[in-house]
């Protein structure tokens, strides 16, 4: 016989409350899987086409003419995330190194304060500033300002609407830097001083110690920061929606063209679930289902990367002396 009093302990209350995030995650996954079943059933292999053109799917539905290829959005995600990580990772690494081993005087306190201050800036601010940055830096560099009309390329070749992939990558990089720097800072700070001092005692200078002692020891933390940065860049919707747009029709014609607009998965989902922000379309059930499928892809990538990060942390904890 179970005593009723023993069930309602403080432990049970904590257990129930602590299981809510797990439950939420499971429900989100189930919802996305259920939602994406329509798209997989209707479209099947046509999801891997290179054309993405959401239609209204007004009756009668012609499944053969539906073009919901995922490839443009996937390629856009890859491009934007790689630009932003390529910019943000070295910069935040430099910040983290400056605030630990290479600190002079009060530089470390100042960098930590500034990064804590900047991490509060919400993404909408970067999104609003995107078009201003385009006007200041991108437009004079990549568009024919002061060029005679005859020598201009055709107008559809120029970046317009103050949006391009490069701009999205740069704004995302600015957004990620205050996010990644504290994690990298923690990882480098947690390296035991005894290891560094042993290296100094053997005659190594600071740069050599950093390269051959500190960074290899902090590698698991650095990989963790990198993965969290990739996930944040991949999941950010507002900045890329403002800086790139709500949907890409096709793959860019030279694949690595950064001055074109290839909207990533997140803003494509936003455009689809808003019913087509361009105003010319209304997306039907298949469009919403494709949005769920894209969300499921994002979720699976996030799970895989988090698993890799956890594996790295566990492996390095076992392998190195504490």
């Amino acid at each position, binding site marked *: 016989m179970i005593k009723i009093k023993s069930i309602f302990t*403080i*432990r049970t209350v*904590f257990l129930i*409350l*602590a299981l*809510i995030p797990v439950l*939420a*995650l499971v429900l*989100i996954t189930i*919802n*996305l899987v259920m*939602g994406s079943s329509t798209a997989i059933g209707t479209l099947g292999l046509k999801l891997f086409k290179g054309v993405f053109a959401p239609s209204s799917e007004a009756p009668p539905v012609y499944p053969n003419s539906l073009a919901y290829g995922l490839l443009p959005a996937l390629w856009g995600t890859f491009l934007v995330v790689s630009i932003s990580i390529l910019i943000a990772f070295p*910069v935040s690494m*430099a*910040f983290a190194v400056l605030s630990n081993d*290479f600190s002079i005087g009060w530089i470390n306190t100042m*960098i930590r*304060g*500034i990064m804590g*201050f900047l991490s*509060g*800036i*919400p*993404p*909408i*601010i*970067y999104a609003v*500033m995107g078009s201003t940055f385009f006007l200041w830096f991108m437009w*004079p*560099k*990549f*568009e024919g*300002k002061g*060029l005679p009309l005859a020598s*201009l*390329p055709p107008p559809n070749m*120029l*970046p317009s609407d103050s949006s*391009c992939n490069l701009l999205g990558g740069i704004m995302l990089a*600015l957004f990620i*830097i205050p996010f990644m720097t504290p994690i990298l800072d923690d990882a480098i700070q947690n390296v035991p001083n005894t290891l560094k001092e042993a290296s100094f005692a053997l005659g190594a*200078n600071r740069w050599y110690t950093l390269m051959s002692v500190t960074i290899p020891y902090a590698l698991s933390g650095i990989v963790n920061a990198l993965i*969290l940065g990739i*996930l*944040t860049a991949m*999941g*950010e919707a*507002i900045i890329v929606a403002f800086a790139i747009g709500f949907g890409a029709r096709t793959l860019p014609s030279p694949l690595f*063209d950064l*001055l*074109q607009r290839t909207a990533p998965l*997140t803003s494509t*989902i936003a455009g689809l*679930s808003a019913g087509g922000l*361009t105003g010319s379309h209304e997306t039907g059930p298949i469009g919403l289902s494709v949005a*769920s499928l894209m*969300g499921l892809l994002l*979720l699976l990538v*996030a799970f895989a990367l*988090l698993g890799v990060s956890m594996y790295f942390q566990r492996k390095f904890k076992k392998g190195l002396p504490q």
Partner: protein
Amino acid sequence: MKASPAMKFHRIFSEKTAETRSNLVKILTAGTSFIAFISVLVGCLTLAFNSIETYLIPFFYLLTISLAILFFSARWYHKTQWSILILAGVCLLSTIFVSSLPEYWVGLNIHGIIHRSFVSGLLMVVIAAPGLCYSIFYFMRATPRAFDISHFPLLLIPTVLALVGFTLIVVYIVSNGALHLNWSLLSTPFKSQYRIIETWQNGWPVFSNQEVKQVGMLNHVLGTFLLMGLTTLISLPIGVSVGVFVKQYAGAKLSVIINFSTTALRSISGIILLVTAMSVLKMPASGSVFYNFFHGYGYDINGTLQIGRSSFIIASVFISLLVIPLIARSTLEGLNSLPKEIYEGSLSVGASKEHTLLHIQLPWSLPNIITGLLLGCAEASGALTIIFLISGSGQYGVSPLNETTSLAYFIFECRYGRSFGDTLQNIMGSYQYTAALMLLIITLGLTTTALIIKRNLSKRYKGA
């Protein structure tokens, strides 16, 4: 043996030359580092502005010559660093390349054209930064300490560029937002409705519309605070209990599962939560009470029921999924920072585990929890990804059952309002930077307070 005058003279002469040569090397390397520094500066300016790239070509020549000189001055320290010579060669090649560029580089197979200032500025920075490192190294006599110091430019150039970017953002928002900021804007709610007026003419009722317009953002500011409050109410108990359960009660497997799910909730995209929220909003049947509760309702000036897209409660439930991991992590940090002797002392004088938890552990970790909560509130006030498709203009009031609105959504609607068919953009479009400034003040105030609490935490007793 007496030295002959000739030998004496020879010795003095060779010593003198050694000294002068070492002085010469110092001056040359100092000059090289100065030129490299100026080149980096000019390269960065060229990346920012368009009209100064013609002045860059003399700097390229100077840099080539000084790098070549640096190669020969490095010989004084008995080092033959071929990479400097290679760098000088690259610099010479790029000088020829840059000086032969037309103003616009047309005909590339990309969607756009490239101005030559971009190419030349990039080349300048890429060549001058290692040049600066090498010249500082040889200026400081090529010692191991000089090797450390010579790497500072590699660390300082990217950080300074990033800080300039952040400064530009903050200064632009503040200078544009402060133009329109006044008290009446903050104390008036936004309204754009039509009041139906009934007048009697010749014994018949005649209805006419009167437009009611109010410029202001009181409801958006209040909505931001309401979102923060509701998010706190939902996420604080859950987040704290996640932290306590993982630290105190959970076994190895359960703690791994809970840790993974909280981390995953933090790092999955907000847009996934948006998709889930939209499918939750579709659940209740239209017209039922739950439909009104879920979608948020309010009454306009004629007393007509207006049903929105989502209520504050639903929005804050989904935002709190983002905030729970923050609070859980900071609670765990606080519990882990409790010195073992205090915990064991409490147990040894006869307190039960629950009593210790409520009276020792949680009060100890209270500052940590508050820090996490403040960061979470900053997150909630700026969280737009979750609510930007399910919130409205906020003119029907602000209460937990009204339609969601916040400052972040205000800024979004000022840009994309027209595609939703809203009037907010037409009336309030010029106030978007003011709203951005208000949002910045709220979030930065919260994060700064969290920072101050965190700094004070490092001063307390940490155990033996």
